[in-house]
Every structure is written in structure tokens, then in C-alpha cells.
């Protein structure tokens, strides 16, 4: 039995004709298929995170020779890594994630990469979000969302946090978007008039229709909470996303993103801040999700990793293998997964990059099939041309 929060109904919500959304909640929830009680969040780290800095293989003998300016002291030393079992250590800015790891709610996959090998941010992101080795006009997360049952009167199944929808959530399924309010707002009648004028427009018509419905929902869920001073920061957005996902009639899938990873120079200083923001954001997401955390899986991934050797300017250039993170109450955590490829010159890809040993799609497939319970027969359409990439077993709590 799930708790149904009491949702205050604001003036705007009522005037937009969205009261039905809220009052229908109880009924719709009873009708909803049980599989939609699972939550899936994808966090895209755009710009290519150096996985070897976030999760440093301090037990690797040649590490300092490869990247002395970028390595941190071993666990137990001042400013040192947070140990993950004697070989890998977590960057100290990720203390919150370390606590999740120790609570068995975080799994780390090292040497993961998408289906793409030529070190362009823009192609790699597009292919990762397309879910295949070429560019598509829709993303895999949208194609998955389209398969989940719609819940009349509820929010759209999928939510994108931001003013744009990334490719991963573009496609046939309508997607809600949310950001804290920015400008003055007219009377609901004016929105309705504009929605009617835009209705015939193939682009803006559906956008306004979805937007108005979503606003009614999000205002009802988040009503009363003062937005923090840094309302557009990643932790603030993650907290709100968690609350929206937690609501009985809320979305079940969300995508967030955070940039700042393209550390070609002065990497140590730059990663400190960005990793701290990521850490706070994931904890905020957990806080927002509250009881729904136990039914949540979060996939954190980046388009590729960075060179194993430090470059000439105390940074790293575009590489291949990086880390992926799986967090949430539904994850069988406290483990480092995947095959560690090693850092000896012959073990590197092109004598340069961490060799990828896990395809990110094998993680995503498990989350769709075993967590969201999307029948396996749909996976080839969601991830075309990937039959040689099976779902990775054992990621979820039994």
C-alpha cells in the first residue's frame, strides 16, 4: 500500500482545469499497473568524466607514472581517497556516494563506455542517447517510456529537468519538462487562448499542451516549498525531481544532466567542484524520493572517458572507458562491477585509453527489463543493433 500524499490545489491548478488530475489520483493509482511503481532516473554527465579520477585504481602499480599530476593520496592519508575495498578508491568529493556504497545502495561499473569509439563529444552523446551505433531522432529512454502504460490524469510518464529535452528523452512518448518559475505569469485564460492558437502547429502545439498539464501537476506537488536561492543548481533540481517522482501521480522516469567534465586543463581543481555538486545532487535526489527511494534505480553515465595519461596541461584529453554508477534502493550495491582491464600499455585501447569492458547499454537493458519490467521482446527496438550486448545480470536487489 503506497502512501498517497495530500496535494494542495493552488488557484492556478484549479483554473487550468487540472483539479481533476489531483482528485482522480486515488482512483488512477488503484488502476495503475504495479510495474509503474518503479522509478528510473538517468543522469547524464555531459563532457566526458575522467572515470580514473572519480574512481581511482590506486592499487594499480603504474598509476603515478601515467598520471602523477592527477592522482590523489591513498585511503587513510590526508586528502586521500575513500576506500572501495582495497584496489579502487572514491574521490573524496564523493563522500555522500561513499556512504551509499557502504549501505549497499551504490554499485560502480568501471571501464564502461557507449557503443562508439572515435572521441567526439557530440557524436558520442548522440549515439549514447540513441542507444545504438548511429544517430536516431529519438532516444532509448523515450522509446522505453512509450511502452509503459499511460495513467489518465497523471503526469507524463517521463520528465526532463531543464528548458530543453535531451535526445535521450525525445521521441514518440510525450515528455514533461520542469524548471523553477522564472517570470511573471498571465491569467490561465490567456494560456488557454494561446494553446488554442498553437494547437495546429506541429511543434509548438503539443509542447504547450503538455506544458500546461505538467505545470498543473508540478505546482500541486511542489506547492508551498520556497525555492532555494540557488534554485537552478543541480542539487536543487535533483531534490525537486525526486519529489515529483515520489508523488503518486508523478512521472516514473526522469532525466537530468550536469556538465563541467571536459577537463583538458587543471583537472584536479575543476573536478573537485563538479564532483561535489554531483554528490550533493544524488543525495538530494534520494531526499526528494523519500519512501520511493526503495523502488528507484539511478543510472549515472557519461559519453566516454578520458586519456589514461595526463596531457601536457595537467588535464586529460578525450578517451574511451569511464565509470558508470548505479544507485538507489533497488540496486544491489556495495560492489564494483565489470572487468578491470588494467593499465599496462598493452592493456590500453590504442595505447591511450582505458579499454572498455562493459557496454553501457547492458546496464540500461537490465534496468528496463528487470526494474521497469518492460518485456524483453521490446529491447531490440529500444536498442537497435545490439543483440551482442545482453543485459548484465545481478544489478538489482532480489
Amino acid at each position, binding site marked *: 500500500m503506497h502512501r498517497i500524499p495530500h496535494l494542495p490545489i493552488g488557484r492556478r491548478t484549479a483554473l487550468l482545469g487540472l483539479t481533476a488530475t489531483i482528485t482522480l489520483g486515488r482512483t488512477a493509482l488503484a488502476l495503475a499497473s504495479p510495474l509503474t511503481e518503479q522509478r528510473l532516473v538517468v543522469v547524464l554527465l*555531459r*563532457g566526458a568524466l575522467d572515470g580514473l579520477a572519480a574512481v581511482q585504481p590506486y592499487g594499480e602499480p603504474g598509476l603515478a607514472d601515467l598520471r602523477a599530476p592527477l592522482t590523489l593520496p591513498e585511503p587513510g592519508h590526508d586528502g586521500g581517497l575513500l576506500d572501495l575495498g582495497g584496489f579502487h578508491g572514491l574521490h573524496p568529493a564523493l563522500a555522500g556516494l561513499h556512504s551509499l556504497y557502504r549501505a549497499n545502495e551504490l554499485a560502480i561499473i568501471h571501464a564502461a563506455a557507449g557503443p562508439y569509439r*572515435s*572521441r*567526439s*563529444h*557530440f*557524436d558520442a552523446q548522440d549515439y549514447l542517447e540513441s542507444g545504438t551505433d548511429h544517430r536516431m531522432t529519438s532516444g532509448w529512454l523515450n522509446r522505453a517510456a512509450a511502452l509503459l502504460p499511460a495513467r489518465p490524469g497523471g503526469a507524463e510518464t517521463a520528465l*526532463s529537468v*531543464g*528548458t*530543453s*529535452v535531451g535526445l535521450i528523452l*525525445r521521441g514518440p512518448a510525450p*515528455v*514533461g*519538462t*520542469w*524548471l523553477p*518559475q*522564472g*517570470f*511573471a*505569469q*498571465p*491569467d490561465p*485564460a*490567456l*494560456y488557454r*487562448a*494561446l494553446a488554442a*492558437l*498553437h494547437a*495546429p*502547429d506541429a*511543434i*509548438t*502545439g503539443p*509542447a*504547450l499542451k*503538455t*506544458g*500546461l498539464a*505538467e*505545470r498543473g501537476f508540478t505546482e500541486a506537488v511542489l506547492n508551498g516549498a520556497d525555492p532555494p536561492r540557488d534554485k537552478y543548481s543541480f542539487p536543487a533540481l535533483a531534490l525537486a525531481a525526486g519529489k515529483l517522482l515520489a508523488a503518486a501521480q508523478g512521472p516514473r522516469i526522469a532525466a537530468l544532466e550536469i*556538465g*563541467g567534465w*571536459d577537463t*583538458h*586543463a587543471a583537472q584536479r581543481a575543476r573536478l573537485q567542484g563538479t564532483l561535489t555538486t554531483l554528490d550533493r545532487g544524488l543525495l538530494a535526489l534520494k531526499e526528494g524520493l523519500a519512501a520511493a527511494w526503495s523502488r528507484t534505480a539511478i543510472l549515472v553515465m557519461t559519453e566516454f572517458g578520458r586519456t589514461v595519461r595526463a*596531457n*601536457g*596541461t595537467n*588535464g586529460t*584529453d*578525450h578517451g574511451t572507458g569511464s565509470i558508470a554508477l548505479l544507485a538507489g534502493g533497488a540496486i544491489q550495491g556495495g560492489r564494483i562491477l565489470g572487468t578491470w582491464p588494467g593499465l599496462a600499455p598493452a592493456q590500453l585501447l*590504442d595505447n*591511450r585509453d582505458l579499454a572498455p569492458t562493459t557496454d553501457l547499454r547492458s546496464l540500461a537493458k537490465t534496468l528496463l527489463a528487470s526494474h521497469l519490467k518492460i518485456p524483453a521482446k521490446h529491447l531490440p527496438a529500444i536498442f537497435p543493433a545490439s543483440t551482442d550486448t545482453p543485459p548484465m545480470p545481478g544489478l538489482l536487489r532480489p
Partner: protein
Amino acid sequence: METRALHALIRFGLGRRGAEPLPAAPQDWLARQLDGPDPDIVMPALSTPEAATTRNGLLALRAQRAQRAAKDPAPQANPVQDLFRATANAAFDTLLTTTTPFRERLAWFWLNHFTVSTRAGQVSALAGAYLREAIRPHVTGRFADMLKAVMQHPALIAYLDNAGSTGPDSPAGKRQNRGLNENLARECLELHTITQAAGYTQTDVTSFATLLTGWSIDLDSDTPGFRFRPATHQPGPKTLLGQRFPEGQQGGLEALDVLATHPATYRNLATKLARHFIADTPPPAAIAAIETTLTRTNGDLKAASLTLIGIDAAWIPLTKLRTPFDYVIAVLRTLDLPPANRPPAINAILGGLGQSLHNAPFPIGWPDTAPDWSAPEAMLRRIDWAYTVASRAKSLDPAATADLALGPLLPPATRAQIVQAGSQRDAITLLLASPEFQRR
């Protein structure tokens, strides 16, 4: 009714400014804007400390560095922020008042092609100078000259991390154990010139990076600016795309000439111009026409622009969704508010709509198709801001404003809603948020 005159202002320009006269011969009017130098670079007052020059930018960065070194807990001024604000305000002034809006749109198009972003620290001090010094002088010139200008501009060198890139076998490389940074080289190949369609390899990227070693920034001398540093330049000739280039700055310049005039580069530029000015998915014949002109003229951007405005498909109205930047500029030109009544922080508005000035997330620049800008919340925010800014336009007659801004492009249904609106502010909002005003 004739739409070409208004379309010329909306598609190729920045939207009609108030009641500015419509051109009698729209295509000639566009073509004439490409004659002579860019009006924005012959403006006076470049000696003031707020002017967008590289020198002022680097001096501001120097002052900021001194402040930080002094660990002043509460510095009185932020020289970099002050400079950015001044140059942003100057840019908005130009955008809102220019009488050569086609040329202005082209300048911002090329700026986006060679994006620099304030998401990298030093760019705030240099972005205005970059537009003025490296982009504007070449908008009607040769692409190769623009490419060489941006690649030697401190803004792009700072943004794509080339200042410290060092040849491993150069004197400095051997002494300090420093080496390459391949960021600028890779993005130049992938985004600015030949693209991955040309089939270059990681070896080409690395080799191009060695060609560009020593292309750096001098922050500290009496004449701060771009500097080629022989001591960090990788010795010896290099090979890029199968061609050999000599040691020294000359090798990099010759490589840029080859890249700038490569057939794959012309294809890339023609595709982007057609996408920006014709449709998200432009007709192949339009791309081919621009590409042919670039090939025939060795990359003459004025000739390419003239070809563009002669393409019939470019005169089909309202096929492109305005980006937030386009939208805000077009709204403010339509309202044509007296300077004292303009919104005080235009860049904050752009931020609220997802497109702050000089702030693209990645070197690929701002996207240029409708799906990138039409998320539900993004569209609602345009309505919200239209309603917000409408409160500043109390003296405007909505129907007259609508007729000026959209004329025959305004469908009767939209016009009827505007005329029947419950208040003047609602009427202006309906105009500015209407489907037709979202497009160009």
C-alpha cells in the same frame, strides 16, 4: 499580399524594429548590407576601458589575477564581470538598433560556428573582443581568413585549452616535462572545418595538435595578446591528412588554409547556412548551391551569402522556430521601447529562456533546430516572459503593433484574438506569444 519585404526582415534580419520602413526591393536591400566594412567595427570609442578589445580583456584578467593573489576578501570591483556586462550591453544595443540586420545575423551565425563560451573562465573577458576582432571583419570575406583569425584569437585559444599545449620535444617540453593538449585541434577538425565526414584519424588529431603547439596567449607583456611561442613549438615538419607542413607558425597557418578550403569544409558550412536560413532539414539543392559557390570562389563568404538569398526556398516564410536569442531580440525590436524603459538585464532573460549570451554548453555551439528549443517548459516560459515584458509596452496599440510586426504573415484567427483580448497587456502578450511570432 506581398510578404517578401517583411520576410526579409524576419528571416534574414532580426525582426522588424517598430515601424521601420519596409525595403522596396528586399533582396537588393539584403545584398547591400554586405557592402563595405561591418558598421560595428568602425565605431569610435575603442580607447575606453570598457571597449571590447583583446587588450582590455587581458588587462581585466590580469587585474583579476592580482586581486586573487592579494586574497582581498571583499574586492570592490570585478574587472572581468564589468567588462562582460559592458560588452554585452553594447552587443544588445547593436542588435536592437542595427539597420544592417542581415549582416548582424551573419556575424552571430559565424560566432556560433566558432563558439566560445563563458563556461570556461577566461572567456567572459574576451568574448566581445572575439566577435569584434575575429568574426566581424571576415563575415563578408574569405572563410580561410576567419578561420585563421579565430585560431589566433586568445578567446578561442583559452576556451579550447591551447595556451599551454607544448610540443613534447620542444625546449620547454623537454625541460618542464609538459606536452600536448589536443582539444583545439580536435574541435577545429570536427566542428569548424572538415567534420568527421572527411574521415580523419586520431593520428591526424595528434599531428594537428603538434602543428598548433606554441599558439598561445601573452597575458603579461606590455602588448598582451596572441603569441606564437617557438620555445613550446614541436620541432620538425608534420603530416596532416597526408600532407606535410613545415615547422613553425607557418606550418599551422598552411594547415588551416588546407582545412579551410577542403571540400568537406564547404559541405559543412553550406549545410549549416542552409539549416539556419532555410529549414531544419534544408533541401539538398539549396545546400549544393551554396557549396558550389564556396568551391568556385575559394570560400568567399559574401558570395555564399548572396547565393543564399537567391534561393527560392529561403523565401518560404516562418519555417524556422526562433531560438530564445532570436525571440528576445525580435520582441524587443518589435516593442522598440525607449532605452530607459528596456528590461534592464536582457542577458538574465536569455538565461531564463535557456540561452545566455556567450554561454553555449559545448564547443558545437547552440543547436539550430526546432526540437532543441521547443520543450514544453521552454515554450511556456516564452509566454511568461512575453507577458512580463508586455507590461513595459503600455503605450502601444496592439493591432497596429501586430500589423507592423507580422503584417500579411498574421493569420486572421490570431489577429482576431489580439483585437478581442481583455486587456492591452493580454493583447500584446497574445501577439508576442503567437505561433507566428515564434517563427522566422
